[in-house]
């Protein structure tokens, strides 16, 4: 399987296969064949040639923190399959929802305007990432309080795209 991974800020392409006893992988022009034992959840013993290396992997949302040989390295996986499945990351803040970019990419088109009312699931912006265009959709019905990006703008993972506020209607 092909993965795109951001490690410590650098993006790398990884070909990754699970084998009967571990992993076969290629990163750039470097190939790896490892035996893997699961020591306990989140802890793996990697046998790489004759070297025995224990790693601890912690997931923090969609990020991973990998401890290896005294280093703690942040890793983010950007596989295409997940990006398609993934809807926006939103966090509710007292009736308002922040829409954040699920991945680094470029804003191609803005589909609405500040002050406009939107339905849940309605597209707000079109974003291009990894040669695919995706609509970023609102998770809730409400009014667009703010659009934080412009067409043509490049955004990082987690960047604020828009804020949607709920509209309370008098009965």
């Amino acid at each position, binding site marked *: 399987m092909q993965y795109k991974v951001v*490690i410590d800020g650098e993006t790398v392409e990884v070909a990754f296969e699970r084998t009967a006893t571990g992993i076969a992988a290629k990163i750039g022009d470097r190939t790896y064949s490892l035996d893997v034992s699961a020591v306990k959840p989140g802890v793996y013993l990697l046998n790489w040639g004759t070297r025995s290396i224990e*790693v601890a992997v*912690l997931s923090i949302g969609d990020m991973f923190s990998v401890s*290896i*040989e*005294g280093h703690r*390295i942040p890793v983010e996986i950007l596989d295409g399959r997940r990006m398609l499945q993934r809807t926006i990351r939103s966090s509710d803040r007292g009736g308002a929802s922040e829409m954040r970019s699920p991945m680094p990419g470029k804003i191609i088109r803005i589909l609405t305007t500040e002050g406009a009312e939107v339905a849940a699931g309605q597209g707000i912006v079109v974003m291009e990432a990894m040669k695919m265009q995706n609509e970023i959709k609102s998770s809730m019905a409400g009014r667009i309080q703010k659009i934080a990006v412009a067409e043509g703008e490049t955004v990082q993972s987690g960047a604020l795209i828009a804020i949607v506020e709920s509209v309370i209607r008098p009965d």
Partner: protein
Amino acid sequence: MFKKILIANRGEIAVRVIRACVEMKIATVAVYSEADRGALHVRMADEAVYIGPAPSRESYLVIDSIIRAAVGTSADAIHPGYGFLAENSQFAQACRDANLTFIGPSPEAIALMGSKVESRRAVSRFGVPMVPGTVDPVEHDDKAKSIAASVGYPIMLKASAGGGGKGLRLVHSESELSDALRNTRAEAMAAFGDNAVYIEKFVDKPRHIEIQVFADHHGNAVYLGERECTIQRRHQKVVEECPSPVVDSELRLRMGKSALDVVRAAKYTNAGTVEFLVDRNRAFYFLEMNTRLQVEHAITEMVTGFDLVKEQIRVAAGEKLGFSQDDVAMQGAAIECRIYAEDPDNNFFPSPGTIRMLQTPAGPGIRDDSGVYEGWTVPIDYDPLISKLVAWAPTRNEAIDRMQRALREYRVEGIKTNLHFFMEVLNDPEFRNGEFDTSFIEKWRARRIPAAAPSQAERDLATLSAILADFDRSRSAVDRASTADVSSESAWKRTGRQRSLRR
């Protein structure tokens, strides 16, 4: 002997006391705040009493609640641990009034040693050396000149109301004195609203070395060697060792005798620690007495072989000290690292949170006095000490090697810790040589070589591990859904099954 002891503390020290009680077949009562439901000390105690909300002033510092918990559970003694109420004479008095034995010194000794002025006055009568100077404010420049001349330059001018490094001035010679007095008084007035200033001899490149003492109610008192506590940051000890690399048997004897003079001056009983400043010429000066069990007592236990907590309990119960001065022999070397939930790269800022993964070291000469477990959330409300890691070996060098080995085995994930900081400090040549003073951390920070960045292979393996975890996570989500109703099954079994599923 006591039947039941209440431990008026939390964290690793509460666990330490419970362990001693279990060995002595004494029942234990823990107390806990809102933040400590499910804490390790609560899990280990026979009984536990809730004493209030998370902030310590509403729980661990409330004398009445603790006395009530002890009376309510029919405990016959209270061990205060260190910190919280351990050096509060009112608490010791409240225990006495409630017919509970306070496992520590008398309220009178705590009060006397808790006063900077009174304690100095009391011990000076016994000829205990103190930093030369005055305790009383110096009012006139002429008086200051004669005092400074008699203690010898360089001297420190100190604001009587001072603290936190403010209102301190180093004076090298008499020609600087008048200006320095004027400036220090002005600074003291601005900072504390009080321009009183006193004079002390300046102790250059001092070390903090303390003597462990023990006294029973039958007139027996002994000292149990020293602990080197020079390595501090923000006046808090981080690495301690026993013995000190600069104390030989002759100096130990002199310091020990002075420490016992302090014991006599305070009519002290139970475990205590006398802190001294030691200068480059191996002259030592009384700083203060800590009227409690010290955090770093374990290194003394490793080197002397005595169990200080059990001895505290026996002495409090009225027994005679189990050993005499002649029985005290120092064997080998021990070193302690205080493992904190804090970020050394961000000025040691506390880093509380949930411990997602914990692997503790073991093997020869290693002792891990911990107050946490995997899955425990280190509360934001208290000191973020998670464990005291102690290494013992026949020599200092081997003890350091052993500590480095144990630090490599230690794994804490989910929160930041100072484990890496200790790796670096123990590698420092000046630490290895035992050549340091209280400014060690400051100087070390300036010359410190940052740890090497991960290699290409380490980065690649980290990448593959993350993908692997992601791969397993999507599977275990399925596992979880199907095993949600059998959560009582052992984690070992579950892990084993998951492992075989992955194959």
